Each structure stands twice: as structure tokens, then as C-alpha cells.
């Protein structure tokens, strides 16, 4: 039984703020309707979803107005809503998939026999043909999301609420997760509310699109109507929404108005045939980094994750490491970055990169020398912040590299301006939004102008504005003569920075299980030995 959702002057204000985080909102969603919720970063999309699911922590803020799900105030304990969040790792509850699926049903107080019977059928419905004893830690990101959906499927909710369910997983798995969501929706006929930047994934499968702004609803309507309306195009682009490929407006007339910051130079979306393509070869300089028969592995692994790579990386060159999950892309990137020892073969820094460093292997360099020469941007930006302000974060690299105070200050000011973070210069890096954190983490690594920059999935889950900002930063680095190595599933990003592609080996899945690939995160280090 699907339930309608109605909001009447609803807003929610965080205890620390004067401005509401969301709303005031007036909206009506009919029972069984499928709704895509869009909006700029900071418009309160997630807050609204959490409010509908009834999981906004009491004590952290104050609601106002009225929000009703099926005529009642939202309360997750009724069991009428199912919630899926963005981070696959943070929402696995138990260590065995059967227990995880059973969790919601047990909470609802269903008898043990019903729970037992529904576990296999829900797993199967979501395409997880695995025994209930299978460890949840051994699932991939996409599988974890489908596991969360299986738990909700088993609860048979009336409303399904999804907070960027595909943002943290690769594009191929994203489609599977999307289909899994649609399966659950079809079987339960529940009302569905989904937040997602990637419009294309959902546009053909929703009845209504709602665009949130900072002061409430900006636009609302069926997708066909909304994305063909030229009046709305600029608004949608300003919100960082990934416009669907076939929407006519944004590519052409859309940009007669002042374009959004930093997306001016190049259009959002795939950039085939960009000027980079032709100019690239002219830009290539001397060889910086070379590998000879390199095999890369995590510490203590008996078999390499990727093997026999021989490549040379030139100044101004962009190299995209692509390949299936578990092909050893991240491990290779960490090895190139001098953070993991080579399994076999060598990573060699040429004279242009060494610049006074005695050793030829980046792995043998002390930390300080390494940071000035090779930058590494990790998948999770929060992991590499070390200071308590945005400005200090940007200044750290140049200072360690021995720049003068004036040079460092100038560099920080330049980067802050480029990032559009000048007003947040004194904010804590960990308190920034996801997109801001991502841009800051890249800028902090670029600050000391390393000759080589290595990045791991920089564009995962980013909205179109952040995406465009990132592309610009990498192009700047390339123009400056740095080399960029990017591990990415995002082919339009790789195209946008004019990357040469290197596909890492496609090995049999049996072999992959045996030496427990990083992406599978099997906790079986000892068992494999």
C-alpha cells in the first residue's frame, strides 16, 4: 500500500543556524508516484529525504510546518518507509548477508519462519544469488547497495527513500543498482523518492521531477517537460545537475546568459573532440616517470593485483588507468605514487622529476621529497586533510617544499580564488561539503606544483559544477607541465583532460578471488596464504 507525502510550509533548521537547512516547502506527492529530487548543493535535498524517512536526529535541529507521510508524522518505527543511503560501507549492518536482510524484518517483529522464508527470495529478487552465510564485507560497493535494497524489499515498505544510492559506485554497477531499485518499487508499488545528480540514470523511470532551491521549490513537473523547457535550463545548470544528453537547450542557447563559475571554458558532459585532443601531442615534454615490467600488489599479498606494466609518463601527459573492478588500478596508482613498494619490476623517476633527490625509486624518497614531486589524491578526501583550516591545508605543501612565505601566500590566494573557497578560508576542511572537500583535496596536492599528480576516482559522485571545476584544475596542471595519472571509470572526465587510456588486465574471476582484490575487500589475507 503506497502512501502519499505532503509538506505544508515544512522547514527544518539546524540548531546552529539561523537559516533553515530545507524549506519552507509546500509539496504533494501522490501515493505510488516515483519522484526524482534535484537541487543545488546545500539546498537540503538530503535533509528533506531524512525528514520523510523520519531519521533526522532529534536534538540536532528544529522542524517547523507540517510534513505528513500517509497522513501521519514520519516515524521509521512504523516500518512504512525504507531508506537507502549513499555510502555502501556505512549501511551494512551485520557481517553475514542473511542477517543483514533479516534486520529490518526482525525489527518489525515478524515471526522467525516468515523472516527465514523471505531472506532467500529477497536476495534473489535483487540479483544476489549468494548463500545467507556469505560475508557482507566480501561484497562490492554495488552489491552492498543491492543488499541494503534487499533488506528493504523484505520489509515491503509503502515509501522508498533513496539518498544518492549510486553516487559512490562505478557507472556499470550504478545501472544495476538503479534496476534493483525499480524492481523493489515495482514489487511493492511503493511511493519512491530519489535524490541523484545523474539525471540520465533516472529520467526514463520517474513520473515527476522536483528541483529544490535554497528557498523552496524551484521547478516541478514531469521529466519530459522539465528538461525541454529552455527557461529552466540555466537554473538547472546552476544547480550542478547533469543535464540529459538529448535535452536540446543546454548545449546551445543555454549559455548566452552568464555561465556558472568555471564551467564557462568547456561544457559539462562528454567532451569528445575538444581542442585538447589536437593540442596534446605538442605539449608533451620530457619523460618524468618510467616503469619497467612493473607488478603492483598490496603488502603481504602473494600475487600481484596488476602485472607487467611498462610505461613512460611525460610532462604534460594525462594517463587514464581504466579496467574492471579488481583489475588492480588503485594498487597500481599507489605504487606509481611511491606509497607502496613494487611487487616486482621498478618505478623509476627520471632526472627531470628527481631534481636533486638521490634515489631513483619514488618509494625510497622521504615523505617530504615525495610530496614535492608526486602528488596523490585519495578516493576519500577526508583522509588526507591534516590541518584545521582550508588556507592552512593549501599552504602545507608549499611550506614543506621550502617555498618562501610570500610565494606560499600567493599560491594559497590563487588557489582559494580558483576554488571559489575564499570565504571559507578559515573553515575546517572536514566541515566542507562533499564537492568542496573533493576540490580542496586536489588543490592541496597541486599546491606545491608536483611534476606528477596521481588521482583515484576524482569525479565519483560529484555534481556537474564540481566536475567542471575538477577538469579545469587538472587541465591547468597539465598546461603547467605536470603529468596526471587518473584512475577513473568516468570516461567523459578522461576525455575532458585528454587522457591516453591504459586498460589494466582482465583476469579470470577465479584468479581474482584467489588473491583477494582490494575492491572486493575480502578479509582473507591469511586464508589466501
Amino acid at each position: 500500500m503506497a502512501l502519499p507525502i505532503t509538506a505544508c510550509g515544512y522547514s527544518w533548521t539546524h540548531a546552529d543556524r539561523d537559516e533553515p537547512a530545507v524549506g519552507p516547502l509546500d509539496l504533494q506527492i501522490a501515493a505510488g508516484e516515483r519522484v526524482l529530487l534535484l537541487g543545488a548543493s546545500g539546498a537540503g535535498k538530503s535533509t528533506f529525504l531524512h525528514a520523510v524517512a523520519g531519521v533526522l536526529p532529534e536534538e540536532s535541529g528544529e522542524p517547523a510546518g507540517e510534513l505528513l507521510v500517509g497522513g501521519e508524522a514520519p516515524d521509521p518505527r512504523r516500518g512504512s518507509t525504507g531508506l537507502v543511503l549513499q555510502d555502501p560501507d556505512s549501511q551494512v549492518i551485520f557481517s553475514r548477508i542473511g542477517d543483514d536482510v533479516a534486520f529490518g524484518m526482525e525489527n518489525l517483529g515478524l515471526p522467525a519462519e516468515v523472516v527465514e522464508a523471505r531472506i532467500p527470495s529477497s536476495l534473489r529478487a535483487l540479483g544476489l544469488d549468494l548463500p545467507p552465510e556469505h560475508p557482507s564485507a566480501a561484497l562490492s560497493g554495488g552489491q552492498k547497495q543491492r543488499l541494503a535494497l534487499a533488506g528493504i524489499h523484505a520489509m515491503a515498505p509503502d515509501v522508498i527513500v533513496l539518498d544518492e544510492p549510486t553516487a559512490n559506485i562505478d557507472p556499470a554497477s550504478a545501472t544495476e543498482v538503479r534496476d534493483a531499485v525499480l524492481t523493489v518499487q515495482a514489487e511493492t508499488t511503493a511511493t519512491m523518492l530519489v535524490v541523484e545528480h545523474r539525471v540520465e540514470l533516472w529520467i526514463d523511470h520517474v513520473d515527476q521531477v522536483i528541483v529544490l532551491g535554497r528557498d523552496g521549490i524551484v521547478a516541478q513537473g514531469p521529466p519530459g517537460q522539465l528538461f525541454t523547457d529552455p527557461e529552466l535550463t540555466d537554473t538547472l545548470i546552476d544547480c550542478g545537475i547533469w543535464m540529459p544528453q538529448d535535452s536540446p537547450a543546454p548545449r546551445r542557447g543555454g549559455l548566452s546568459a552568464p555561465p556558472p563559475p568555471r564551467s564557462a571554458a568547456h561544457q559539462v558532459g562528454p567532451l569528445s573532440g575538444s581542442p585538447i585532443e589536437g593540442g596534446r601531442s605538442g605539449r608533451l615534454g620530457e619523460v618524468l616517470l618510467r616503469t619497467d615490467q612493473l607488478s603492483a600488489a598490496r603488502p603481504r599479498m602473494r600475487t600481484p593485483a596488476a602485472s607487467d606494466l611498462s610505461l613512460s609518463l611525460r610532462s604534460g601527459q594525462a594517463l587514464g588507468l581504466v579496467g574492471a573492478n579488481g583489475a588492480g588500478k588503485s594498487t597500481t596508482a599507489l605504487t606509481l605514487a611511491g606509497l607502496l613498494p613494487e611487487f616486482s619490476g621498478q618505478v623509476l623517476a627520471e632526472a627531470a622529476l628527481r631534481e636533486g633527490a638521490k634515489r631513483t625509486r619514488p618509494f625510497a624518497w622521504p615523505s617530504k621529497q615525495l610530496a614535492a614531486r608526486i602528488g596523490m589524491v585519495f578516493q576519500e578526501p577526508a583522509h588526507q586533510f591534516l590541518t584545521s583550516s582550508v588556507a592552512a591545508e593549501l599552504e602545507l605543501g608549499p611550506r614543506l617544499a621550502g617555498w618562501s612565505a610570500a610565494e606560499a601566500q600567493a599560491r594559497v590566494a590563487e588557489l582559494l580564488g580558483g576554488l571559489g573557497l575564499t570565504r571559507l578560508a578559515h573553515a575546517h576542511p572536514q566541515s566542507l561539503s562533499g564537492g568542496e572537500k573533493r576540490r580542496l583535496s586536489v588543490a592541496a596536492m597541486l599546491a606545491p606544483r608536483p611534476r606528477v599528480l596521481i588521482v583515484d576516482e576524482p569525479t565519483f559522485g560529484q555534481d556537474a559544477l564540481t566536475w567542471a571545476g575538477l577538469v579545469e584544475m587538472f587541465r591547468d596542471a597539465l598546461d603547467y607541465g605536470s603529468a596526471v595519472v587518473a584512475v577513473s571509470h568516468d570516461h567523459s572526465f578522461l576525455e575532458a583532460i585528454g587522457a591516453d587510456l591504459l586498460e589494466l588486465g582482465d583476469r579470470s574471476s577465479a584468479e581474482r578471488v584467489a588473491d583477494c582484490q582490494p575492491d572486493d575487500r575480502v578479509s582473507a589475507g591469511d586464508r589466501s596464504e
Partner: protein
Amino acid sequence: MPKTTTPKTTSARAFTSAPKSKQWRVVDYVTTAVLGIAVGLVFWVLALSWKVLELAFQAFPPSIGLIAGLWVLAGPLAAAIIRKPGAALLCELIAAIVEAVLGSHFGATVLLSGLLQGLGAELVFAAFGYRRFTLWVTAASGMLAAAFMAVSENIMYNAEWQFGFQAIYAVCAIVSGLVISGIGAWFAYRAIAATGALSSFASGRLR
């Protein structure tokens, strides 16, 4: 919002106030547990990397008390962040379990230690009716937890030491408990609050 009218003395800043209710929420339980696990893990990592340091203290073993105060960090830290009755006790106990299970040569006795240390930290906040969460209350909590630790360690492990050494150990431990796990825990909590990670808690108020 009733709290906006409170006088603007340092002790009545929004970030020192108690939560609206003493009732535990799910997020309180989960966060207390995760904090305990994280602190237990950190202890274990420190214990591994400080082997050399510990050897230095072995020249005069009672001086190890000077860093022993660190081991009661979990209680005061959890109380300052979660602010619910029992948070210090639960968190310290979980940290102790994690440490025991990861492998420490104290074995199952760390559960006893954890219980006692958590109780020490808890009693101070209880004495203030779980209404005052300030630097000095947290500092006192670290101190009492360390005192409980010192006495129990003297009985359980240092029983063979001469009394004078036991007393020196206890004084060192209490001082380090006050400084590291009391004052240190408070500033660690304030630094965590500045990142916005505590927005679901009363302790996360920034103003």
C-alpha cells in the same frame, strides 16, 4: 528554543549544555560503541609503535604512570561528546574489550580495568547530575578514572612492587589522567566539534 536566553558566561555556552533528554537515542549507542572501537584501536596501534618509548620508561617502571593516564581517554571523551548517563562507562568498557580481543598481555583483566576506569570517569559526570559538561568537569573525570586505574593496577599487576613505588606510580598516573585524558579529552572533543561531525549531538553546538 529556550536556551537562547541563558546568561553569556563561559560555563553556559551552548556547547557546554546537556542534551534535551537523558534518554539514549540509537545514534548515541552506535557512536559510543564506534568511539570505543576507534579508541581501542588507537591504543593498540600506539602500544605497538611506542614499544621503544615504553622501554625507556622501564628504567624506572613507576614513571610509566606518566603516560598511563592516556588509557582512560575513552570515558571522558565519550561523556563529553555523547552526554548521556553511562556513556563514559560503556565506551571505556568497549575500548577495553577491543584492546583485549586485538591482543594485549593483560588478557581478560582489561575488562575489569575498563569497568573500573569507566566507573571513575562516569561518577564525576553523575555527581554533576549530567548537567555540566565543561573543561573542568571533564578534567576531574579523567583524574578520577586514572585514580581508579592506578589503584586497581597496583592490586592486580604491581602487587609485588614495594609500597613506595606503588604510590609514585599512582601519583604519576593521576597527574597524566588529569592532563591527557581530562584536559586532553576536552580539547580533542572541541576539535572534533569544529569539523561538524557532531551535528547530531548537543555537544556539536558551535556557538
